[in-house]
Every structure is written in C-alpha cells, then in structure tokens.
C-alpha cells in the first residue's frame, strides 16, 4: 500500500507544480459558476428561480469535469513514457497495478480540491435559504464518483500513447461519449433499446445522486467502470513486457 501512497503524493505534488492544475481548476470554477448562476439546458437564472437548491451545480459540473479531467490525466503516463521515466519507475519494487492506482489517487487529489472549491455555491445557498443538506451530500458523492470514473478513463487513454495531446483528445472523447453520447447511439442502434443498455449512460447513473439518493447499483456501476479502466490501464502498461 505504501508505494501507492508515495506515487499518489508525488503525482499530486507534480499536478500542483504545473500550471495545468491551476488553469484546469480555474476553468472548472468559472464554467460551473456560469452554469450554476445562469442555468444550463434552458434552466432558470439562479436568483430568479429563488430555490434553495444546489441542483444546477450537480447538473452542470459533470459536463465540465468531462472536459477538464482528461487534461489533468493526459500527462500521467504519456509524459513518463515520452521522457523515459516510466522505465525508471517500473524498475522500482512496485507493481504495474500499484503504479496505475497511485497515479489515479494522485489525480483524485486534484478532483477533491476542485470539488472543495465549489463549496462556495452551497455555502451561498445556505446563506440565502435552507437547502436539503442530504441532497447536497449525495450530489457531491456523485460528483466524486463520476469524476473518479472520468479520471480512470483519462489514465487509461494516457497509457495508450506517448503523446499528451492524443491522450487528452481520446480521454475527452471517451468521457463525453459515456456521459451523454451513449444515449443517442443506443437510440440510433435500437428502435426499442433494452433497459440494461440505457443504463450504460453515466447521466442515468448520476441522476439519483443529485437527488440525494445513494443507490448501490449506481455505486457498483461506477466502481465497475473504474475497475475495468484500471485493469485495462494495467494491461496496457504490462504490454511492454511482450511487445
């Protein structure tokens, strides 16, 4: 476990040593702020709606996370591959799985900081009314899970290439695909899609969190996607042994 934490700490420090973290966090805060105050998808202006709810944040943040997080993860493995430091890393007494988990945990540190910075919105709502705290807690848990899933997908694409830009674009496409495009594709493919397929969309899985309901099925779903992404990343990393 210790090596995982060492890698995680190193990655987190490296993330905040580069300007990318600050740019990503700033873009994230401004974009979610805009969507929170002015509405998303035909939503109402926050002050005009006069409802003590943080739902607009939970509706908008996953979109922004889907764009921002691949930018954070793009360098995690791709940069190490390009600069050759990955070879150095694998000579250390750590397994490939530990490397991937360590890097993912490091990126999760960034996610936690970014989400913590959005606390300004619920605090504002608390000041102006009495929102349902349970729903806020549920929403943040959902954001954390979906954010981690995006990070895992980002780490996976980062293992596929030496080029950070390629890793970012692939990560972005995957995140957007799972967040929203699956819906459209399933509908294109099936006239009457089976229910199991419609549940592939992250949006569907995230919906109950933002209402304040923690459903075991949603947790298992996100955990499964994270586990598969981590396994796939490990497989890619290991593939250097047989290539």
């Amino acid at each position, binding site marked *: 476990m210790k090596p995982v934490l060492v890698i995680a700490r190193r990655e987190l420090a490296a993330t905040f040593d580069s300007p990318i973290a600050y740019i990503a966090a700033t873009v994230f805060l*401004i974009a979610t702020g805009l969507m929170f105050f002015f509405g998303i998808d035909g939503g109402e202006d926050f002050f005009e709606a006069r409802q003590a709810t943080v739902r607009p944040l939970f509706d908008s943040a996953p979109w922004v996370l889907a764009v921002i997080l691949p930018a954070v993860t793009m360098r995690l493995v791709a940069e190490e591959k390009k600069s050759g430091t990955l070879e150095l890393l694998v000579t250390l007494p750590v397994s490939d799985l530990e490397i991937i988990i360590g890097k993912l945990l490091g990126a999760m540190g960034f996610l936690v900081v970014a989400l913590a910075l959005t606390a*300004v919105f619920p605090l504002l709502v608390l000041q102006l009314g009495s929102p349902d705290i349970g729903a806020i807690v549920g929403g943040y848990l959902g954001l954390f899970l979906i954010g981690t899933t995006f990070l895992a997908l980002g780490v996976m694409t980062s293992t596929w290439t030496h080029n950070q830009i390629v890793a970012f674009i692939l990560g972005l496409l995957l995140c957007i695909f799972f967040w929203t495009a699956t819906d459209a594709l399933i509908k294109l493919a099936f006239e009457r899609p089976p229910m199991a397929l419609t549940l592939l969309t992250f949006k569907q899985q995230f919906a109950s969190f933002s*209402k*304040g*309901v*923690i459903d075991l099925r949603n947790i298992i*779903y996100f955990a499964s996607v994270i586990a598969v992404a981590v396994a796939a990343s490990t497989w890619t990393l290991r*593939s250097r042994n047989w290539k």
Partner: protein
Amino acid sequence: MAKQAAGAAGQNRNRIRTDATVVLLATIGIALVGNALLLRVPARVDLTETKAHTLSPESAVAARALEGVSITVYISKRLPESIPTQGGKTSLKGVDRAFRDKIDEYVAASDGKLRLVYADQDVPNAGSIEEQAEAAKLELFSSTEAQVEGNQLKFARYALGATFHYKSVTEALPKALEPGFFEFEITKRLLRLRDKHEQSQLMKDVLSDGKRLHESVKKCADAIREVTKDSAEGQAAGLDLTKLATDQKGLQQKLEAGKPKMEGDCAAVSQVLADSTKKLEGRSEFVDNLLKSSQQFFNIYNELHRYLRGEGPKEVPTEAALPQLVNMLDQIGREVEQRHQTLVDSPGQRKIGFFCGHMEFCPFAERDSLMDPQMAAMIQNNQMMKQIAETAQQISSAIDQTNSRVGDGLFSKQGYAITKVESGKPIPSDIAALVVFGPRSSIPDYDRYQLDQFLLSGRPVAVFAQQWEVAINNMVPPKEIGQDVRLDHTALERTGSDLPATLAPYGIVLGNDLVIDPRHSDTVRVMELLNRGGMRFQSERDFAYPLIPVFTDFSRNHALSRSIQSMSIPYVTTVSVKPELKNDSRFEVHELIKSAPEALARDSGLSANPLALQQAVVNQSGTGPHVVAVVVRGPFKSAFAGKEPPRRPKPKPRLDQFGPPEKDESEDEYALVKRNFKPDGQGKILVLGSNMGIEGLSRSAVLRDFNAANMSKFSVEALQQYQEWQARFQNWQIRITQVSHLLQENLRFLSNVLDWATAHEALADIRSKGDTRRPMTEVKAEDARTLRIAAMVGTPLLLIVLGFGRMRFRRRRVELAATAVRDARS
C-alpha cells in the same frame, strides 16, 4: 543455449500476456455479472431530510395489508424524451426507471403479498402494450414529435401506468409521469383497494344488478354499432351529419337489414332496466345516474325502433334524424359505460360535502334556471331586454360550466366523491367531511346550526376563509354608454363573511387582518393596458406582492404539514386558538402554518397597489410570526346550547317547473331536529385564513342584482347592471389569473386537506413529500450581481494567487538548494 533462453523468455512473455489478459477479462466479466445481478436490487440510502425518495412506513403497511394483490405495470417499450405540458414540456428521462424502482420497493416491502406482472407485447393476441393499457383503462399520452404513417402525420401514443387487482376489485393508476408523487399515487390505490373490496362486499347486489344492466345496454349498443359500422367509422373520423343525412337511405337500409340482430341483442334491455329500477332506484346517486342514462338509452332506442317499423317518431323527423339517433345511441351507450365504471369505483368512497350558497367556492352547476319561464316569455317582445336576459343567461351558463369543469377536474377525476351541500337544507347523513371554502356573505342561522351539529358529530370540517377581496387593475364598467372599459380598479375591500362569529364559539379566532411580508413574498401577475402611439396594448407584469407571503414555518407534528417545505398563500388572515382551549388537555391544537417573524398583520391603512404597498411596509419592523392555519380536535360545545334550533327556511319556488315542489319543514320534522340536538361532541376542524387563490364563482356573486322582474321594463339601470355583470365575471377571471402560478401547489394542499378529512392522513404526508421546493430569500439585483461575481471570480482568483505563491516558494526553494550546492562545492 541462446535459443533456449529466447524460448524461455518467449514463454515468459506469453505467460505474462495471458495472465494480464485473464485479469482484464475477469475484471470485465465480474463487472458485467455484478451489475446484471444488482440491476433489480433497489438497495439504497435516501439522504434527503424528508426521506422524499424512501417508502413511508404507511406505504409499507399498505403494501403488506392485503394478501394476493397483483400489480400489472404497463410501460411502452420506447418512451419519448419529453411530452408537451401546459407550461412547455416535461422531460421523461428516467421516469420509467423511477416507476419500476418504486413498484419494486413496494413489492420488496410487501413480504411477498404483492405480485408484480409486466405487460408484455410478446404474448400472442394480447396486442401492443399501448393497446393492453387502453383496455385496462389507462390514459395514453402523446409526445411532441409526430411520425408519418402512410400519408398522415400521427402522434405516437405511449403508456406508463399500472393497475392494481385484489379479488374482484381493480384500481388503475392511469398515468405515472411525476416521480415525486409515485409513492402517493401507489399508496392511495392500495388503500382504496382495501376499502373498495370491503364495501363492494356490502354492495354486492347493487354491483351485480348494475353490471347486468350495463351488459345489456352494451350488448345493444354494440349491435347497433356493428349494424351501422361504416357510418360509425365515418363518425369516428369526424362526424359529418350533412353527409350522414345524404346517406340516410343507406343507413336506413343497413339498419333494416340488421334489425333482427338489433332486436335480438336489445330485447333484454327493457326487462333488465325495469327490474333494476325496481330494485336499485334511490340506493345511491351512482346507481341513479346509471339508471337515468340507461333509461335515456332505452328511450332513444325505442324512437329508432319505431322509426324503423314505419310507425315514425312522435315528431316528423328532420333529414338527419336517423344519423342523429344512431349517434346519440352511440354516445349514451358510452355514457352508460362510464356511469357503470363510476358505480364500480364507488364502494368505499367517502363523500365530501361543499357548503354552498354563501358566495363561496362551490364547484357545482346551479340546479335552478336563472329566470322563470313566465318572465322569459314577458320580455320576448322587448329586443333590448331580451338581449340582456340572454347575456345574463350566457354568463350564468358559463359560471355553471366553469364550476362543473372545476369540480370534475380537481376532484372527481382525482378520485374524490364530492357533493353539494345547499344552503337552507339539512346536510345529508352520508357526507363524511364538510368543506366551507371562502364564503363571502354571511351564513344564516340555519346553515350555522347544520355546520355546528356536523362538527359535533365527529366528522371533520375544513374551513378556508376569505375575509378580503383584493382587486388589482380590475375592470371598471363605463359610466356612460359608448365609453371604454377601464382596467384600473385597485382596492382592498372586506367581504361580507361572518366566519369570525361562526368560528368563535369553538374557540377559534379568525382575524380581520391581512398578513403582509415584504421580505418573503411571492409575485402577483398584473395585466396592464398600455397606450403606445394611440394604440392600446395589453401586457402582463409580475410584481413582488407582500400580500402573498411565502410561508416556510410548518408544524412537523401534523401529517397535513409535516413534509411541506414552502407555500405561497395569497391574502391570508391570521387564525389563532383561544388560550383556554390551548391549555385544555382534552384538546389537541396544531398551529400548522406560521409566517416569518418579519411579517406584519394589519387590518387598516393598506393599499392593494403592489408598488405602493411594498414602499409602505418595507421598512416596518415585523410583528410575526403569525399563525394562519390551525387544526383543533377535541370535545367542542355547541354554539346553540341553550337556544332553540333555528327552523329550516321556506324553500324557494322552483323555477324550472320540473320535479315536485319542495315542502316546508313540518312540525314533526322540527321536533325531530330538536330531539336530535347534540349539545357537545368530539370534533375536528381545520381553519386556514385564506382561500389560497381559489376564488369562488357563483351566480349570486356575479349576477348579484339580477332581478327578472325589472327585465320586463326597459331602463338605463338595467343596461348598467348588464355591464357590471360582465365586469364582475371578467374580474373573477383576472383575479384567478393574477395568482394562477400559485394554484398548482395550493391545490395540492387542498387535496391533502381532503385526504385528511376522509381519514387518509398518511396520504397527505406522503403527497407533501413529492414537493421538494425550498424557497430562497429574495436578493436585490445589485446584490445578486455582487454575489455572482464574488463566487465566480473570487475563488478562482484565490486559487491563482495560491498557485503563484506556491510556484514562487518552489522557485525560491530550488534557488536556495542550488545556492547550498554551490556553497558546498566552493
């Protein structure tokens, strides 16, 4: 050797690859299997304060209450993204899943007593899911997107609902589109199922005779439909009586050809109707309605029969008589079907009486006609007066139609059995609860006595007060003929209600004031007439209105208010309970709704003008919190203790000349009233100091000074009165529109009250859970701007500053380290 080493390395590589691939595939497999297994396991934690997404204990009890309930769920395979609604469109994303989940929760909570079946379109001969749903009396709905089928543009229809079956009784949830209210809708059906089953056992004979009658009429109606098939199809495509009239010969031939079938299938109607009338008449209003419609069907069938036998109807038929008769038979046949369904649904329904006759909200049509036939005949020669009388009649009909539609839409269709309690008449004994909704004139002694004795009988009474009439930009009729209508009557006036005096004997103090809250107020929608370049425009504007306070302080100890988060109640008066009642342990007092501490309660010096009122009260310090709704339960004393019970007023002469005239109260009847007088009794009463924006529309309020006798002679006053009636009718519409945005939520509270009154308190609590709105303090535009900028720019700026600080710190640390290395080297 090198070859062997290479071979071993290759084997090793293969092993690593196989191991890694196996791990990857195993992870994918476990993920897929785990998700598939958990797909139908609703294990979840509801973090919301009101547990809005978790079954209430009452719902779980309802799920376990009956052994062998079967639920059939109808969900179209592919639902649309959204459906059109009044305010735009409603998204249906995830609604089907939420419905399945909710039903699953009930099944899980039922300990195996509920059986779940999904309607399946793969069952042979069962038809599509939509067809099955329609047959099960579910309500199909359309999407916003039309599809081209053949040469026609059609809106696909969808089903999302369920039916609940228990032994011989069925309840339908026709359309399940609001996830927040799924629990309420399902629990309501389960509770109804139990009541319905119990009561239908007692009404077995009525139901079985009703069924026999319905079946005989249906058989006859079906035979006529079959015989006249093409014409019926023509009617379904859009009734064209002219065309039918030209096809009359063809229709007549068809009817003559099918006469033996018709006669055979309709032969039983006469006998069954006679038997049923003998056995069932007067047993309940639902049975009477079925009998009435069946009788009507039979009469028209007889007319048709006579026509076909060449005897001819009593009057010479017009060209379109035959198609009209066929069409009427078709319609009345359907009506009989509906009446029968209402009868089947009636067991276990508790009747709610609406007090009428005091200018209150009374959702029923008037029985009497406006003018007596003699007077109508007298003014036939005066064209002007005839026109005025006709307009009055039109207004009267519009009032009746509006009231009937409101009663039907708001109550009957929601499953409430409502009935009119007329002024000057005793309250029928089968009424389970009484609603007094915003009377604006005084309640006569006799009606008060009825109310008093009803309360003491232990049945619940719900009182909604309307002590003020608030007119903002109401219509003013012109003083002179030819002048324009003005839209500028703004005033606050007391109504003629004497509810405070009516409620005082029961320890309830209804104020004469109005609650004003400048800090927590909703808006009023005001219509204005604007003059722009000589043109008149009509526009609407929303104003924050302190006379519509937003209430957020609700009693958490009463089912009626426990789960409500917020309510905007217009023009509300304070309500309190006398201290002696509060301190009496025999009484249970709940102060349901309280205003914010910043609210004021004033009975004079107020302006109805939103801007003037806001300015006048904005800086005044609050005197709240003010209580605006209470529920009191306990041993009340009669307001008529030690007094003679009032005599029933003489009945008004019937103007329609139909039915027998009503008799005066006889001495025996009065003696019985005296004997049955209850000086005290356990009762429960709810009082809310507002009509919640649901203002009554009554003939007595709109056509207040209608005097048929004055109609017989022409006068300028009569013309002015005519304009005033129109203005009053339109002002009702204006006032309703001004608060229409509040009505949906307030109607929910009214439904809660009706559930509370009909002994389903748990339903009130469950319904309120569905409403998750939480109001926020109003923020001025400039403050909102500041807060937006602070939240959106402040945090990122802080982050950037921190980033720069960290980078500078790091650079400094690197420089220091470099210096230290240099120093060490040197």
